[in-house]
């Protein structure tokens, strides 16, 4: 099926069908444009091009895949067979493979151009892929002849309204003459970060439209290519809904009494404390209160499997969450231990919030995101973007974050510069040694836009749940975990 007769040439976009790539490209490729896809062998150029072809086939449009000196078609198709986007029935009508190497050898670039023009017309092609551009370049008598070839291809593409992908094994070196001729350049590469390797895509050039600048992670799986735009590069034109006076509470009366105004809807709360201090309990209480009120809730955790979590919190008065999980009012997502990618995690989290329309979210283990960051300098902007996205979805979110030291005079905040600035609320949990007993302490360090009780409080976790006791009226250096009495300790109840 040929492109619509009256489709505008300059602004019509061809969606790639590659998740995330259209976002990076600002909507897709421009119809009749010529795009170079550059990358070393194995970078993913062939996969990207084929994925595009089969996506076009699913939309009723025809593609012509022309190889020069590339792998054989049958070998290529063998590699495509495990891919979910691959549809063998699309061949030969909607995706047609030909080799033009002999034509190039015998008749040079003019012969190649003639073949391309004829085959595009004969097959009513909307997308033309030329795989192995380097061979065409090497056949050119001069750089000028090669530029002329690209130019003539461009003219044909405009006349006949087909889009062109040129696959080149060139790398992102100095600008080559043909780079000035094409409408866009996509670079695929693999970069090492210590022992890790990441595939990255960059739009080096894109005429006629906005795109997301910089490197974006992509992966290749049986879904083909999936691109995960760098979260902080996405333009956040969306404004969070102003929920006005809407507030949420933890559902722990003694704790909620410390923050009578509650947490603003859509706000982000950081639950900070060492291991075993009660962060998970507090976070799941926030969700339990949401479930009680009929709000869809999401638990996104890194450390505990859903079963283990539910068993643990059932012992502290939250046994109702088991049923909530069964009935899907509470969605539980667990990231097993392993290497992750920051933007993939964000994408997964946001997709789940969207899918469940979660009003309350608890991310148990912010350090799971830290561990995924190959460039820690990104974290501040990344979290700013993540919290903004959550706010725009109206999700009230709590993040738990472990502090490394259980006891000690030093308070180490394991947060990159600026992360605390993007969270509206901050609760600090601590173990305190006092009177030869280990006690739990909670203090509110920050609560945006509302008053709160700043006193240090002991809290307990029992079969009946969390209870916050009266403030410690005496005792110094509580927040260090090594409290000391100036005199006998009394507590106001």
């Amino acid at each position, binding site marked *: 099926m040929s492109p619509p007769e009256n489709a505008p040439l300059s602004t019509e976009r061809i969606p790639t069908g590659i998740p995330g790539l259209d976002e990076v490209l600002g909507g897709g490729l421009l119809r009749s444009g010529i795009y170079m896809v550059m990358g070393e062998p194995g970078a993913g150029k062939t996969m990207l091009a084929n994925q595009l072809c089969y996506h076009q086939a699913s939309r009723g449009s025809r593609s012509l895949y022309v190889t020069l000196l590339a792998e*054989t078609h*049958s070998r290529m*198709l063998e590699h495509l067979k495990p891919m979910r986007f691959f549809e*063998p029935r699309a061949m*030969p009508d909607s995706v047609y493979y*030909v*080799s033009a*190497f002999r*034509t190039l050898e015998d008749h040079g670039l003019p012969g190649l151009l003639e*073949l391309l023009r004829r085959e595009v017309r004969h097959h009513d092609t909307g997308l033309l892929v030329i795989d192995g551009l380097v061979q065409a370049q090497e056949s050119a008598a001069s750089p000028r002849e090669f530029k002329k070839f690209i130019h003539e291809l461009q003219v044909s593409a405009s006349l006949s309204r087909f889009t062109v992908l040129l696959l080149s094994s060139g790398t992102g070196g100095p600008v080559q003459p043909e780079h000035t001729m094409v409408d866009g350049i996509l670079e695929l590469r693999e970069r090492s970060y210590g022992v890790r390797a990441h595939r990255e895509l960059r739009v080096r050039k894109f005429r006629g439209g906005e795109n997301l600048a910089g490197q974006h992670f992509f992966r290749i799986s049986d879904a083909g290519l999936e691109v995960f735009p760098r979260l902080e590069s996405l333009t956040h034109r969306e404004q969070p809904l102003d929920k006005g006076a809407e507030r949420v509470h933890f559902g722990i009366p003694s704790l909620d009494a410390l923050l009578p105004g509650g947490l603003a809807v859509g706000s982000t709360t950081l639950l900070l404390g060492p291991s075993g201090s009660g962060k998970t309990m507090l976070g799941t209480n926030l969700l339990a209160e949401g479930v009680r009120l009929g709000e869809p809730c999401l638990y996104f955790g890194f450390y505990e499997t859903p079963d283990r979590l539910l068993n643990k919190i059932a012992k502290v008065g939250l046994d109702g969450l088991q049923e909530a999980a069964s009935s899907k009012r509470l969605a539980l997502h667990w990231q097993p231990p392993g290497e992750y990618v920051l933007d993939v995690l964000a994408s997964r989290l946001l997709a789940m919030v969207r899918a469940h329309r979660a009003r309350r979210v608890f991310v148990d283990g912010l350090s799971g995101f830290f561990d995924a960051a190959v460039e820690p300098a990104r974290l501040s902007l990344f979290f700013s973007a993540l919290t903004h996205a959550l706010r725009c979805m109206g999700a009230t979110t709590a993040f738990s974050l472990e502090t490394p030291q259980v006891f000690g005079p030093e308070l180490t905040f394991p947060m990159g510069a600026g992360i605390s600035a993007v969270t509206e609320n901050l609760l600090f949990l601590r173990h305190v040694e006092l009177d030869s007993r280990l006690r739990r302490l909670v203090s509110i360090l920050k609560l945006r836009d509302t008053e709160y009780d700043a006193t240090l409080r002991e809290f307990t976790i029992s079969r009946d749940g969390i209870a916050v006791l009266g403030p410690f009226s005496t005792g110094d250096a509580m927040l260090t975990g090594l409290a000391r009495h100036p005199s006998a300790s009394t507590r106001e109840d």
Partner: protein
Amino acid sequence: METVLVVDDEEGILSAITDLLELEGYHVLAAGNGRKALERMVATRPDLVLTDWMMPVVDGLQLIEQMEATPGLRAIPVILMSAVDLSAPRRLRPELVLIQKPFDANSLVKTVRQTLDRSREPR
């Protein structure tokens, strides 16, 4: 010596099959598309045509149609090969000998031999 005309736009495949069949004792002609194949056939009538399906200019099925329309060529046996699923041509032309790529050398040689032998059987 029997003559086989191999038709495929992929240079590497054309070269590999040509060498293979020559080693098996056949005289091999090669063409990169259907139009060139027809030109060669008119000059030197092959005993068998082994053709790819997807090719520029004139593809494999079009070549078969043009051979059938040409006296002197219509009786030449044809084997159609392709990396594409062959169930559609199998349905449309049940008499056609088909071979799915990728194939191994032995399968190809066996199919060529069987097709040639069958073409010599009295009808």
